[in-house]
């Protein structure tokens, strides 16, 4: 069961990763047909890809902070709505920190951030049983420069959509 869940999760993560890589058609507003507008595509509002790209899968934090700013709350309102509409999915909220900090502290800080998102989504009506949290501390940066421009993007909580692991 657990293996299946992880396999499904992995597949969806890979799919998201693949689609987030810009290719030469991206930005072209003309739908070229084929599978591009079909179920599961970025234009299907019930797809995890739509959640990632249109709803917005992540919120950012100030240095050492885990409170949610107004931009973050708007994104999370959208996430909550999507999750309540698409009840077949669950989510894992990943908390992250930038590299400017010690390893253990950053793990704890990432957990605070993921938890802040989880609590907010629950307040908006998402069932707690559909949400899990994990912290990666500073282990999984997406931006690699050692400047604030990169740090700002790494101080994040990402809501990763998964197939329902209870079903």
């Amino acid at each position, binding site marked *: 069961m657990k293996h299946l869940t*992880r396999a499904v999760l992995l597949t969806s993560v890979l799919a998201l990763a693949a689609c987030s890589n810009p290719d030469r058609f991206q930005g072209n507003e003309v739908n070229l047909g084929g599978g591009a507008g079909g179920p599961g595509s970025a234009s299907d509002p019930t797809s995890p890809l739509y959640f990632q790209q249109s709803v917005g899968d992540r919120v950012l934090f100030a240095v050492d902070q885990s409170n949610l700013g107004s931009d973050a709350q708007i994104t999370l309102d959208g996430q909550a709505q999507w999750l309540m509409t698409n009840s077949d999915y669950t989510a894992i909220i990943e908390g992250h920190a930038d590299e400017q900090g*010690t*390893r253990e502290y950053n793990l704890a800080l990432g957990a605070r951030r993921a938890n802040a998102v989880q609590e907010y989504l629950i307040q908006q009506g998402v069932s707690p049983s559909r949400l*899990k949290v994990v912290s990666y501390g500073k*282990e999984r940066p997406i931006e690699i420069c*050692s400047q604030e421009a990169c740090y700002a993007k790494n101080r994040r909580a990402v809501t990763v959509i998964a197939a329902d692991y209870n079903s």
Partner: protein
Amino acid sequence: MMKRFLTLLSVFFCLLGGQPLAAAPLRIEITEGVIEPLPYAVPDFVAENAAAGTVARDLARVVAEDLSGTGLFRDIPASAHISKITSFSSPVEFADWKAINAQALITGAVSLQSGGRLVVKFRVYDVFAGQELGNGLQFAGTQDGWRRMAHKVADAVYSRITGEGAYFDSRVVFVSETGPKDDRKKRLAIMDYDGANVQYLTDSSSIVLAPRFSPTGDRILYTSYETGFPQIYVLDVASVGRRVLEQQAGTMSFAPRFSPDGRAVVYSLTQGGNTDIYKMDIGTGRSQRLTSAPSIETAPSFSPDGRRIVFESDRSGTQQLYIMSADGGEPQRISFGQGRYGTPVWSPRGDLVAFTKQSKGRFHIGVMRTDGSEERLLTASFLDEGPTWSPNGRVIMFTRESQGANGSASLYTVDITGRNLKRVKTISGASDPAWSPLQD
């Protein structure tokens, strides 16, 4: 590997006749912070049979690397030697060693016997006193353990001259790192203190963090994302078998360390976004909560007597160091300087706490007394963190991460005097070192 191969035989070699008393004993006081290293000579060991020729040379070189690597000693190269040591039992020509200002002379002999058994003998001389420093010693073991025998020789020399415990025959467990910053692969690995004999303990399929040795070096605690969530594992070094230590649904556990008796583990557990410190009895699996605050409490480390725990907390608003009883209770803050303090580690002697300090955009490794006084910063860089103590409490190893998109992690050592900063040779990136106790 090579767990029980060394048998230490303390063999008394006959003294070389009556010796005059030395005027001043050959001695280095480490606490002073040695500026001028002590010159010594360690000629190639005498090969007592033809098969021992290569290892006789290699042994002497590892002894020299150990001693000179401390920054306390300086090897006089063979090209400057006047005398050659061709027989282990012949009298030493002290005048020849005095002439090149070798204050200490180390001689040795090696024989490789049937079945791959290696026998190493050595003597240490105080050249200017014209006498042996302590008695000759002999070690025997298997041939593939020759580096350990060299470390044993260097340990004995170091102890005799400094009067302190040594650290060369020790190991380091660490996280081996490969790949770019945004796709880094981490594996648990173990090596000799000098970077030799690397052995991998896990594959790179899961993130692994911050391994820690048990007090006897037989087990390792570490954190792994094997289940998708960080959890603490305990690994048996001999069998490389492992089991999960702490696994409650909906929690994360990390930052484990053994108690000095090896029976308990202190660690952090995160639940509902809040991180506190817990202690678990390894035998029963029963755990006890030691802190209960809405702030982050992590990186706990026992005092050597097991009665107290130093840890970091941001209850004041920033990361600072605190000490509490090993059973919990009200902690005392010990760090009061400018900046943030984390990853405290109690010294083996009990007198100091090593830590990571973050101040004005720089990271430092430092030490302070356990009441917070006499803070000394030993390093400064873009990112230094995670100190670990040498078994004798004189050297600290830590992680240094270089800046930028191509940044990578390496291991460094520095004396607690702040001298002798050196990179440890590793074949890939490396982080999160933990130094073992001196091996038996």
